[in-house]
């Protein structure tokens, strides 16, 4: 490997390299630990947690599309308490940052989860606001600036010293509006993009492939949308960005970093190749070295718009 400094800092959290794994694609790390040492990762965004255990949606929960996949897992998870007692100690064995990802039905639920997780000692909390707000009639928090700000505010108030990163949904007219709202409400970092809503129909059975009819699109197909949104958000806010959406090579990660991301997450690409995060890291190092950089973090925000 070339001699390039790989470490990056995201909202005060220093990672040994800029590659983390995306929430929901890596479980709580146990399975992929059979393939490589988790200490090689910059960080791990754990599977999305809710206050109480959830079984998620009925199967089929996945469909393939051109260079993408749709999923409709629907936040199956053992609940925040089981995460803290059963999963966190396992993750803590590794020398990597642990980022808990949370979803709530109400702002209060976000608050309770933040308090528990801050107490348990995670490195960062990623607040997923793509889930519907039950009180606001099922409207997703992530599509309305005032709701997004409210959730962020409550999360911050209960997270103590633990930095709060808010994860934005791409299913909006103007992502910068949401980004500014959560920054204004105190978010320490922003991650994006979550999945884009899509659908696939089996033309023979005439049934949607997913039992939920629609699901979230991820994978290489969405990379150009992710790059655009990271770039727009980077210009709109000052907080650091964790970029994701379709990364499968060092070059993809470099695009997101140039657009403004301080670090990147790899999700869907894991399913084709479990070693993708390490290959992305190495690819970034080679690319940075080839450009004569001393550190990979020098890429962040360095796009030269026309």
């Amino acid at each position, binding site marked *: 490997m070339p001699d390039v400094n790989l470490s990056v800092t995201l909202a005060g959290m220093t990672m040994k390299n800029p590659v983390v794994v995306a929430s929901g694609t890596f479980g709580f790390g146990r399975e992929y630990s059979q393939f490589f040492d988790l200490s090689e990762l910059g960080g791990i965004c754990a599977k999305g947690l809710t206050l109480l255990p959830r079984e998620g949606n009925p199967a089929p929960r996945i469909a393939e599309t051109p260079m993408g*996949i749709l999923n409709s*897992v629907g936040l*199956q998870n053992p609940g925040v308490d089981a995460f803290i007692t059963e999963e966190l100690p396992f993750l803590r064995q590794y020398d990597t940052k642990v980022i808990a990802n949370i979803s709530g039905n109400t702002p209060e639920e976000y608050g309770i989860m933040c308090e528990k997780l801050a107490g348990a000692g995670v490195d960062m909390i990623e607040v997923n606001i793509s889930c519907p707000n039950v009180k606001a009639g099922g409207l997703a928090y992530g599509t309305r600036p005032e709701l997004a700000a409210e959730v962020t505010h409550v999360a911050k108030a209960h997270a103590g010293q633990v930095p709060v990163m808010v994860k934005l949904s791409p299913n909006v007219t103007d992502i910068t509006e949401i980004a500014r709202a959560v920054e204004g409400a105190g978010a320490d970092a922003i991650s994006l993009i979550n999945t884009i809503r899509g659908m696939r129909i089996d033309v023979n059975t005439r049934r949607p*492939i997913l039992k939920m009819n629609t699901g979230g699109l991820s994978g290489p197909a969405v990379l150009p949308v992710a790059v655009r949104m990271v770039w727009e958000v980077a210009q709109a806010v000052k907080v650091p960005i964790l970029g994701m959406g379709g990364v499968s090579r060092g070059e993809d990660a470099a695009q997101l970093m140039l657009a403004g991301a301080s670090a990147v997450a790899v999700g869907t690409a894991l399913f084709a190749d479990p070693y993708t995060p390490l290959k992305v890291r190495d690819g970034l190092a080679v690319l940075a070295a080839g450009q004569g950089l001393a550190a990979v973090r020098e890429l962040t925000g360095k796009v030269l718009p026309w």
Partner: protein
Amino acid sequence: MKVERECKIVSKEQVGDAVYMTLEVGDMIRASFRAPGQFVHIRCGEGLLLRRPISVCSCMEDEPDDLLSIVFEVRGEGTRWLAGRELGDSLDVLGLAGNGFDLKPEGRYLLVGGGIGIPPMLGCAQYTGGRATAILGGRSRDKIILEDFFREDCAKVLCATDDGSLGHHGFVDALVRRELSEDRGYDGVLACGPKPMLRNVAKVAEEFGIPCQVSMEERMGCGVGACLVCACDMADGSRKHVCKDGPVFDSREVDWDA
């Protein structure tokens, strides 16, 4: 410990409508074999993001490379790509995945395979050293594949076809019922095939009070238990995962109405 590696195709032949392939899989069997009924997760070209799960038909430890055989039918893009690979080509294989059947080498089992669910039962037959009875079913005579192999590795082989072109005219569960009523000495029923068949077989086994294990299918992402897409509804309302908790489940655990 699971592995992901390039595996060379060392034999390829047509069996009925299906393709039979043998792969050199390095130390994959030594490293991750647990029981017959596990599967491999195979990458089908650069253009497809998702691997395809295919059951292990039979496998053996060997030097320098363990050997593993799979049998599959062309259903869509991925299996079409797979069927196009030739002797000497390499496949990107992740495995062995899943748990397989819970069975004792010295046990006596009734193996039930339907259609493309037949091949994984061969591994069970071999594992139990000739003691098993196999019931093979399919739409018609040409869907009953690998019969000769089963005759080699089983005490008894029965066939059923929907159109009566081979063996019993009807479904396998009728043969299961006959066999279980004539012979009370089975340690269990192990089945792989389409869900309606599994449900019917499970019902018969339950009637006779014989434990029954079924191999379930579901669309997969990671294949290792991390992404949680391959949910299988359980009778108790919970959801387990075919790739990690399965693909084999106790028939009484499964919610057959889901």
